Structure formats: structure tokens, C-alpha cells
């Protein structure tokens, strides 16, 4: 599963919806029923509830339209694009639009309204598309779905509960502490003083702080960092990364996990990856790296493994002789295993657990010791 960029979600559990207009393909009652049934699909696995409004501005406005319909995402006649929806938020966000050039039906003889509505409402709640071909949130319409036994896939349930957690225990069930979603359950509180990072990298002027399957994205024009799933932008990358660094001259970010590494440019994972880290010149004894950073001035990339580091020459594309060297010898004061390294403002920032060492390469000394999450406005 994945969520929209910035991970928008409703900040309340009781949402409203309104069916603004109707298709001529079906009786109104059939449309009402299909929408209600589609909402129940999500209600059943979350704390969310949906109340219908007959007028005014509801959170989720549902309408039928053809071709250009005022949102710069025109429909395209019969087939191809069936519908679209917007992620949670004010005004047109959260809304669902159905292409009325489709033949909307209650069964599978045409385009089943319930099935498409359940998918689009997944978007209205904050889910992006899934690569799981069995998931409701898979982008292609599956006309062979057995409508009589429709069920969300585990991927759909994992996705929506990642955002909203599971439904509250019903009165009959024993009171168990409702496990909230990872966002609330503390596993991902950005100002947790114990927070550490898996990897940190710049990317086209932004700074990315990777943790588990997520990353915080620090945009210089936005004080608050944005939390995203790695899969939202790079569906093929793994989670729990080891290291990441940007080579600005190549407009590329290199991502490491275990013996493999990937090159990404913006959204695009470059062809021919993953490659083995040993192609960079590491001996076979090295099974992973802990951290990496590329010095754009010197055109050297530093790789950190346990208590040593290596230096890679970006011009000759080769590991330099005389390495590895002890980190303590050349970066005095940087203690402990290095989780991640960032170069900014002429300093190197070494992240080790919840501690961050600001290192001045000219003075060759640690100038500040900070909390790792100081970059996240904590």
C-alpha cells in the first residue's frame, strides 16, 4: 500500500459525505446503496464513521461528470479513466468524481459502481495506489471481482489502519488497548528524544531523514517536515535503509541496504540497479555500510562501516588507497557507531543513535552535540 505524498489524513473520525448529483444509468436508490455499501467497507476496519448530508459542503462530495469538469483532470469518454478522487483535506479535497461516460451498473455487466466507489473512497481517506494486484487499491479495474464475496485485501486493511488504526473494540469484545496506527502509537513521533535515523541525505535542496519504511522530508520553504512512506515515491525501494547520499553533480541519490545499492533521480530508480556494493571497491568482507556522505567540494564520498571509514573518489570512480582508516583518527570526537551523515553549512553532521555531532572539517573537531531530531523542529 502507499499513502499520498505528505501523508494527508482526516484529523477526525466522524466524516460527512454528500451525493451531489446522479448518473442516468441507475436508479437513485441504487446509487445511494452502492455508495453506502462502499463506505461500510472502510468503516468496518477503522474507527471512521460516515454521515450523509443532503445539502451544503460535506467532507466527501460525490458527483458524476464527463470530460472537462472543472478540476483540470478531464475524463476521457467511455473506458480508460473511470473515476478519480482527492486525498483528505478542505474543499475539493476528499471529493470523488465518477466519469458518467461509463456505463454504471449494480452488477458486473458494466462498470460496477460499488467497486469503483470503494476504491475511490480509499483515496478520499488517504490511500494511494497499491502494487498488490489483489488489493482494492490496485489501480486497474478488475471486472472479475466476485461482488457477492467482496473483501478488502490485507494490504488494503494494513494501509487504512496505518493511517487510522483499527476499529474500537465492540462492547461485546473484551476491552483491549486499541493499538493505534503507527503514526499515533509512538513508533514514529518525530520529537521522541530517543529517535534515531537509518539514513539521511539531501535531495535537490531538501533533506530526507529515513526511518523504517518512512522518511521525513525537510523542505526549506516549509518549517514543519513532511512524513511519507518510502513506497509513495519509490515503490521498488526497500525499507530500513543503511545509508543514503546525494552526488549533486549527478543529480542523483544513492541508497544502500545490505550488499545492494540503488541510484535514484527524483522519483526514478535508475535502470540496472540494485548493484552490489562490492562494485564500488569494497572487499567481500564488507556486508553492509552504516552511513555515507559525499563532499560536493572535494568530490569525495565517505563510507562509514563500524569504527572505520573509506573514501571514494567521484572523479576516478574508485576507492582510494590507504583506506579504511579509523573514524576516530580523522573525525576526533565522533563517538560510537555512525548511523547517518549529512553535509550542510560547511559542517558534517554525524548521527549516532539519538545523538548528533556537528563536526567542523577545517577545525577538525566536534563543535556541537545535539539531539538527532533537532532538524525536525524539535
Amino acid at each position, binding site marked *: 500500500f502507499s499513502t499520498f505524498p505528505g501523508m494527508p489524513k482526516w484529523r477526525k473520525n466522524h466524516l460527512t459525505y454528500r451525493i451531489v448529483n446522479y448518473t442516468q444509468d441507475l436508479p437513485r436508490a441504487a446509487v445511494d446503496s452502492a455508495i453506502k455499501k462502499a463506505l461500510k467497507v472502510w468503516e468496518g476496519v477503522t474507527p471512521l464513521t460516515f454521515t450523509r448530508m443532503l445539502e451544503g459542503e460535506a467532507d466527501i462530495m460525490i458527483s458524476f461528470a464527463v470530460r472537462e469538469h472543472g478540476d483540470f483532470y478531464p475524463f476521457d469518454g467511455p473506458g480508460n479513466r473511470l*473515476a478519480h478522487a482527492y486525498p483528505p483535506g478542505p474543499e475539493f479535497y476528499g471529493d470523488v468524481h465518477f466519469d458518467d461516460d461509463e456505463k454504471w451498473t449494480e452488477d458486473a455487466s458494466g462498470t460496477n459502481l460499488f467497486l469503483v466507489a470503494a476504491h475511490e473512497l480509499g483515496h478520499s481517506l488517504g490511500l494511494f495506489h497499491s502494487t498488490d494486484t489483489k488489493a482494492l487499491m490496485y*489501480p486497474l479495474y478488475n471486472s472479475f471481482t466476485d461482488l457477492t464475496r467482496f473483501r478488502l485485501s490485507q494490504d488494503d486493511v494494513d494501509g487504512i489502519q496505518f493511517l487510522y488504526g483499527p476499529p474500537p473494540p465492540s462492547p461485546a469484545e473484551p476491552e483491549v488497548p486499541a493499538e493505534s496506527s503507527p503514526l499515533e502509537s509512538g513508533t514514529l513521533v518525530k520529537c521522541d528524544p530517543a529517535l534515531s535515523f537509518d539514513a539521511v541525505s539531501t535531495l535537490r535542496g531538501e533533506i530526507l531523514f529515513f526511518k523504517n519504511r518512512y522518511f521525513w522530508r525537510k523542505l526549506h520553504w516549509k518549517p514543519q517536515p513532511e512524513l511519507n512512506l518510502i513506497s509513495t515515491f519509490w515503490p521498488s525501494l526497500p525499507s530500513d535503509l543503511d545509508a543514503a547520499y546525494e552526488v549533486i553533480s549527478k543529480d542523483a541519490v544513492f541508497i544502500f541496504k545490505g550488499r545492494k545499492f540503488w541510484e535514484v533521480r527524483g522519483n526514478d*530508480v535508475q535502470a540496472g540497479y540494485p548493484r552490489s556494493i562490492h562494485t564500488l571497491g569494497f572487499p567481500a568482507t564488507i556486508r553492509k555500510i552504516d552511513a555515507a556522505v559525499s563532499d560536493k567540494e572535494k568530490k569525495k564520498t565517505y563510507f562509514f562501516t563500524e569504527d572505520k571509514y573509506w573514501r571514494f573518489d567521484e572523479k576516478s570512480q574508485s576507492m582510494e588507497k590507504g583506506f579504511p582508516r579509523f573514524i576516530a583518527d580523522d573525525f576526533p570526537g565522533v563517538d560510537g557507531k555512525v548511523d547517518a551523515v549529512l553535509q550542510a553549512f560547511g559542517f558534517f553532521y554525524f548521527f549516532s543513535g539519538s545523538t548528533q555531532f556537528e563536526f567542523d572539517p577545517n577545525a577538525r573537531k566536534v563543535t556541537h552535540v545535539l539531539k538527532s531530531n533537532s532538524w525536525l523542529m524539535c
Partner: protein
Amino acid sequence: YPLNGAVKEENPNMDFAQKYLKNYYNLAKDVNQVYRRKDNGPVVKKIQEMQKFLGLEVTGKLDSNTLEVIRKPRCGVPDVGQ
């Protein structure tokens, strides 16, 4: 016209595929089929990305299977974040 290769005859499948990749996979709007470069790098990469996302064999080519899938009805929301 690019010196290193004549503009190939129009390929309706490629047109449809490029439109699909622009709509759903962030293929840059300026990748214009008229200036089709020999290696067609960005489009091939995007075809591979789309094939991987949709669970197809990653060939980087508009094989029949891929063409069949991109003509299937779908949701209008993109598959990859901007």
C-alpha cells in the same frame, strides 16, 4: 530534427503509452515524441517502472501484454507521488 536519427513514423501505441506514463508515472511533460532520441531513455525507464508497479514482466518494451494492460479501465489517480 535530431541529427542522430530520423523521426520514426508515428506509432499509435507509443503515443498512447507516453500519454499513460505522463498521466500516471510522472513522465516529464517535455519528453516529446517528435524528438525521439535513439535510446529513448526516459520512456524506457518509465515503461519499466510502470511494468514493475503493475506486476508485469519488466521488459522496458511495449510488448503485447503491456499494451493490453495499459488499455484496461482504471482509476484516474496517478500511481507514483509527484
